[in-house]
């Protein structure tokens, strides 16, 4: 692998995609605040892609801060730790924003433990000495990640120990760190890069070392100059590169980020490892550093509460399991125009109607949109203008996929590679007829999955 210049041959961008208004101004200047400890946290047993974890605590049992409450037993599953010290309540059911309905461990807080600045220091605060990092063995790093229950914090929550695994069959030459945060509105990663660059760099270094990468590149979009600046300062002598990419949605998709940074295309249906790349979010990298260096599990994360529908937009560090309602209350509640609450960014997040919905490891933000933001005009007929084809970053034909789903034509769906769609929403965003293409494609995917299951 040679040196391909600042962008490593990727040209800093990828084909197609869209440029939605960024709207990051709501929270872009807000430094990360630490939310006071909630009275109760609800920890869904499955917050990640893959299998659920098995609870190891019983009702009325006392748990300490950071104690293991659920063990990930399957290969693709991760552990769960208590973000507060308290008593375990009766098992409860919870429905996650993505529709998953599952049991959860509820803990009533008794001892808030660290709070405020102390907590921040414990989680992200320096110093992160880059010199002693080399003393960890790859296997050791991997185990620390496994034990800390780290999952991808960008949104999909794929267990990180599966990705950052020194024993993978496929040789990894590059670790790409995702600092794009291409979703409109969200600024959590941006703030994290500005405020805790050292943790990110340390984590990236560790993860890169663990997978045996010879190169570590952090990809950041060019609309976050402060973050780039702060990272560049923190890089120091580590040799980690910071690639500035052209702002475009969905740059944060791992396949498109690899294309933008390295100029390589992950094969259809393949994984980044197929082209020798491992990838992780900046938040994940910080969590890796914390787990390896400080032996602290993943109990808190940074989220962004933003949008015109929330009174005081903020970037927050919150314990996992806090309810969305509480976070919104902390930010001054909803404004009168608030119309839709979205867990995640507005492009790929899920609308939430229940304030008790907990924040999970994968929740990167809460966006509260107003009636003005969400245009609720009824869907019209498709006029086949081809806009969706022009913007689809995967090079699919979304309107045909939607048609296939509507008519239940699975052959058509397969012919058009429906499973390649990762639901970024670029098509539905640009559709002049306001057809909920993504929703139809999801319906089509379930049809395909069902037919394959049979």
């Amino acid at each position, binding site marked *: 692998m040679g040196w391909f210049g600042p962008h490593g041959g990727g040209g800093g961008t990828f084909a197609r995609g869209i440029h939605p208004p960024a709207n990051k101004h709501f929270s872009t200047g807000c430094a990360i605040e630490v939310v006071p400890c909630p009275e109760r946290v609800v920890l869904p047993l499955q917050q990640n892609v893959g299998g659920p974890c098995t609870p190891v605590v019983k009702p009325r049992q006392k748990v300490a801060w950071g104690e293991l409450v659920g063990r990930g037993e399957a290969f693709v599953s991760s552990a769960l730790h208590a973000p507060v010290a308290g008593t375990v309540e009766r098992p409860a*059911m919870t429905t996650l924003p993505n529709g998953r309905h599952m049991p959860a461990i509820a803990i009533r807080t008794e001892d808030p433990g660290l709070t405020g600045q102390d907590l921040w220091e414990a989680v992200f605060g320096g110093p992160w000495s880059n010199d002693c990092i080399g003393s960890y063995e790859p296997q050791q790093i991997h185990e620390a990640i496994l034990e800390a229950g780290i999952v991808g914090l960008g*949104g999909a929550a794929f267990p990180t120990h599966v990705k950052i695994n020194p024993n993978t069959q496929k040789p990894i030459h590059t670790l790409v760190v995702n600092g794009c945060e291409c979703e409109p509105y969200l600024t959590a990663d941006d703030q994290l890069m500005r405020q805790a660059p050292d943790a990110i760099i340390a984590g990236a270094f560790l993860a890169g070392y663990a997978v045996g990468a010879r190169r570590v590149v952090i990809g950041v979009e060019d609309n976050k100059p402060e973050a780039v600046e702060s990272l560049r300062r923190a890089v120091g002598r580590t040799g980690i590169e910071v690639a500035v990419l052209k702002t475009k949605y969905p740059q944060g998709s791992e396949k498109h980020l690899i294309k933008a940074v390295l100029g390589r295309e992950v094969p259809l249906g393949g994984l980044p490892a197929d082209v020798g790349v491992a990838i992780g979010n900046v938040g994940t990298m910080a969590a890796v550093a914390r787990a390896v260096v400080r032996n602290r599990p993943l109990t808190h994360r940074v989220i962004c509460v933003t949008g015109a529908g929330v009174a005081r937009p903020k970037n927050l560090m919150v314990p996992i399991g806090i309810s969305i309602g509480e976070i919104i209350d902390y930010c001054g509640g909803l404004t009168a125009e608030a119309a839709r609450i979205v867990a995640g960014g507005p492009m790929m997040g899920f609308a939430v109607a*229940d304030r008790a919905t907990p924040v999970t490891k994968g929740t990167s933000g809460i966006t509260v949109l107003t009636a003005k933001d969400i245009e609720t005009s009824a869907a019209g007929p498709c006029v086949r203008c081809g806009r969706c084809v022009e913007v689809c970053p995967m090079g699919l034909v979304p309107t045909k996929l939607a048609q296939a789903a509507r008519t239940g034509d699975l052959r058509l769906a397969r012919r058009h590679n429906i499973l390649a769609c990762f639901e970024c929403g670029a098509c539905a965003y640009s559709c002049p007829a306001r057809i909920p293409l993504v929703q139809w494609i999801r319906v089509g995917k379930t049809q395909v999955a069902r037919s394959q299951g049979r």
Partner: protein
Amino acid sequence: MIIWVTIGLSAAAMGTLAVFFTSVLGWANRAFHVPVDPRIEACAEALPGANCGGCGFVGCREYAAAVVCDAEPVDRCVVGGQSCTEALAAIMGVDPTPSLPYRPVVHCGAHTADRLLRAPYHGEPTCAAANLVTGVQGCTYGCLGFGDCQRACPFDAIHVIDGLATVDYTRCVGCGACARACPRNIITMAPFKAERILAVACSNKDSGKDVRRVCEVGCIGCKACQRACSLFTVQDNLPSIDYDAYCPDDLGDAIRAMEKCPRHCIVAVGKPSAKDLAALGDEQLPDVVAPDFKTTVDDTEWRG
């Protein structure tokens, strides 16, 4: 003279042609002989040809082939009914096993006003689409009421009435299209041993507290029915009826259980014809309610 020659030649030409083609085809018939079971043809003729898919095959012909080649039971055709079964049985030389009428049962009893935590939903008004969005209503098990079953029914026998899919048993022929269409799998095909049978009108497996939070009428898993009658087994906070042991003539306990239920979740449904009363058999119980609630995003590797 020329007339007779013309007539003669015509006849001769035709004769030659006929001899030629008959012998060639006769030879080909033998030389290229491929054995095909004539019973497939016969079965296909006996089937109604509606291609409704009620038997679980793509069309009548496929079912005919399956009956002959894969020894599929002959009683699968719901449209053709008894006469069709008998015809197939005659062709196949088997006893026509009496076919128990399977009819759909909607395992949800909540009407619009009973469903709590409903949020205004903006999107495609179909159950399949709405099922992929959280928060349309609090209950993740219950009927969404967008009528996918109604659209799927070829016999106009199921309708969404006040937010709940309701089967019109006078029209229903039991093809199962609604059960296949329901994305939440709350419609199952139940063996109707009598004109009316008892069924559980809820699918929610959560604990009573969680159910009360989302529904005015849903089952709270109190086990009152189980205590009153052995037909009922409560598992995962939800009773199921053992239809194998279900005897329509002896329902004393079951009716008591029905009256005991504090949420009135056990209901009597159906109106099959009288002739089916006699038709009993040891049919296997269909799986009762297996909510399959999972979005495809679960498998997506990246978001946001």
